[in-house]
């Protein structure tokens, strides 16, 4: 089976704490977040709300974010939307190696 591909997206300093950053890799549009405890998370930059919109501009709290357009409360670790709303955002793994930050993308089809 093909392996996930690790794509370098920049240096640690390119990503501010508690503020989302949009990363585009080909067709992927990804929102990268750094939490106050040093965690790195990457989600599809697309709210699961049926009317759509980006997630990069969300307010970050703990390991969750609040969707900037309609305030959906989304868990960073698995992209699950918390009640009373429903939905899920696809997540990606962020790999930090020294100063280099990378994202694991699924194997190419």
């Amino acid at each position, binding site marked *: 089976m093909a392996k996930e*591909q*690790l*794509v*370098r*997206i*920049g240096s640690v300093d*390119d990503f*501010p*704490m*508690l*503020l989302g*950053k*949009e*990363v*585009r*890799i*080909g*067709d992927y549009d990804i929102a*990268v977040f750094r939490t*106050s405890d040093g965690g790195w998370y990457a989600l599809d930059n697309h709210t699961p709300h049926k*009317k*759509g*919109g*980006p997630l990069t*501009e*969300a*307010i*970050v*709290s*703990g390991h969750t974010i*609040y969707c*900037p*357009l*309609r*305030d959906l*409360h989304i868990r960073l*670790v*698995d*992209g*699950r939307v918390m*009640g*009373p*709303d429903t939905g*899920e955002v*696809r*997540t990606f793994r962020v790999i930090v190696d020294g100063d280099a930050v*990378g994202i694991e993308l699924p194997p190419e089809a």
Partner: protein
Amino acid sequence: MNRKSADRKRLVLVGNGMAGISVIEQLLKLTNDYDITVIGGEPHPNYNRIQLSYVLEGSKTIDDIILNSMEWYRDNGITLHTGVRVTQADTERKLVYTDRLEPLPYDALIFAMGSRPFILPIPGADKEGVVGFRDIHDCEIMLEAAATYRKAAVIGGGLLGLEAAKGLVGKGMDVTVVHLMDTLMERQLDATAAEMLKADLEAQGLKFRMGVKTTELIGGARVEGLRFENGEVLEAQLVVMAAGIKANVEPAAASGIAVRRGILVDDSLRTSAPDVYAVGECCEHRETVYGLVAPLFEQAAVLAKRLAGDAEAVYEGSTVATKLKISGVDVFSAGEFQEMEEHTVLKLQDSWKRTYKKVLLRDGAIVGGILYGNADDSQQLAKWVKANTLMDADIHAALFGGGGCCGKEKKLVSIAAMDDAEIVCGCNGVTKGTITHAIRENGFTTIDEVKMATGATRSCGGCKPVVEQILQYVLGDRYHGAAKKEGICPCTDLSRDEIVAAIRDKRLTHVREVMHVLHWKEEEGCSKCRPAINYYLGMLWPEHEDEPESRFVNERLHANIQKDGTFSVIPRMYGGVTSPKELRKIADIADKYQVKMVKLTGGQRIDLLGVTKADLPNIWAELDMPSGYGYAKALRTVKTCVGSMFCRFGTQDSISMGIELEKRFERLDMPAKFKMAVNGCPRNCAESGIKDLGIVGNDGGWELYVGGNGGTKLRKADLLSKVKTDEELIAISSAFIQYYRENGKYLERTSDFIERAGLETVIRAVVENEENRSQLIARIEEALTHVQDPWKKTVHNETVRRQLFETVEVAPAAKQ
């Protein structure tokens, strides 16, 4: 994991589908007692099988319908084996055998292997191009065939068959539905509804062969057609078998567990073997094998409770309700649908609108019904059927209109007379029924609780009074309304005033510090309290450094986010006055950045819509105009009429006064957005009556009106004061704004603030008490010395531009 593995019970789930995973999800909410292993035959995580028709139709991708990602299993400590087949269980030694793993020991075992399409046992059924419609793999085969071949046949005119057929028609195939019976969906619809359905689907391009039996599939290696009992042949290069499902019982049967059409279970979902359970489409309960999703969830909930030690939980069967998922065709059926002698039948058919509604009563209770053409009442009807609700005048009126010549009567004001199905919260589609149910079931007593559970009042808040009335109606004396102490958000029990007092008394200076010192329940707060605290800090300490991570997007990026993620740019035009030169510059910039729309705002400004985030600082730099603050909780605009400069009726120079006030108060943070207007005469062309602060000139001076609102809550402004000179006008305006800044709750508009604070109190504080007034003015003057144009600040700050506005672009080829 809290406890050592050895102490924990081992739960093995066979089947990684919706029913089984639903058990696990419910169980995880109840207990942490189990080490869970899931064995799935398909090579995917759990997905929403019901939405496969959307995948086929093309409106969703496979990724969209994944329910539980691999991370979910990992995060919950669940071991997942995909692509593994369970062969049998040794129910004495409590071991599960598979085709490739070591035998797995269990303390509890759940079979939830679902079902598979019933493939007709006819010659040719094994040919290439013959599929069921069950899993992602089938879906892929169908999509591939649609790209290559033209003709398809779907055997089975039930729910699944019709959805498959519609999906294939959408992919450009010529599709014939072949049905053994004379009417479609005969397990859910009566002949009337079935005929309407057939006609509507024919109009959408489906073809039908009714009452025919397929005896053979013909062709070479790949199927080329169907032969019917009468010898006729129908050409097809793709044949979808949707003639029913067959429960997957083999591993259970091989283990010596009692099986009929499905694995037999009792009301606690136990099979004939100890500690072995079954749920979903593979089990048979009280002689029924369910093929729809709602019963699976009901079974899963009961089993989860059982496993968590609740011996009371029982499953006594489900009322089956069905909704066809084909766009443009609304069909719903619940419970009993064929009228018998014992039924009282209520029917309404409208052949012009193509709607049909039928409700069956037994002994006065609702036992089933069909909705065709308009299924708006489906949720409500399903509830009534499930609860066997007695028909009464209200329900009758809700379903069949209130009589009279014009159908439904006009809505009644009283909550008691309000229909349960009536939408209370229009933004989020929450009905009165949902709200009353939430209040009763959960013992809610506050609007916030209702909001969290149902979403009502969450968006525009316009329905808050109705929700309050519903609380009052349901709880009676037990509802204390606003008197009950509520924190500003679920993170704290402290009120706005307590928080502001604590910040002042304890001299707190950072959002985090406030949350920490005041023992926030959620360490980093939420989208409600963080922006609020940030505002209070800035209001109390003008030198407070703003915390962008606690700002809503619009105020962080100084532009209005639009629904597509682009932004709008509104430059400041004091008093709504511009010049040809400025307009040319704006036009050139709009061209250069290809903005999607140039629009005049309600506040007499120009809005450039559809700007990407990365372009914002560049546009601001080129405009070289101040920010118009169209996004901010601050002074938006001062709307002006032409006034005495040009207008023959004008008594005061409203434009000059408007510009002066706008320049004075711009950029200052306020609890909510703040709109002003200045009019040169009482004709009031700039609409002072609906502004936070509206000023009307007359021959002898000015009148100041406050607390007006033209938005969500239409409110006419109250007269605050009449003054003779421009100086007095500015002084009282300053004092009022500062009083509102210091006493308003974050997000509270002046219209609500005036009512809460009381107009008399406000007049005393800002007009009559001169000493207080001059202190308010001194404080606002101090605050105004700290404001800065955010666009200029951003344009000249490389770090902010990079961190907040730039996107990381990586070429797909640039791999490590």
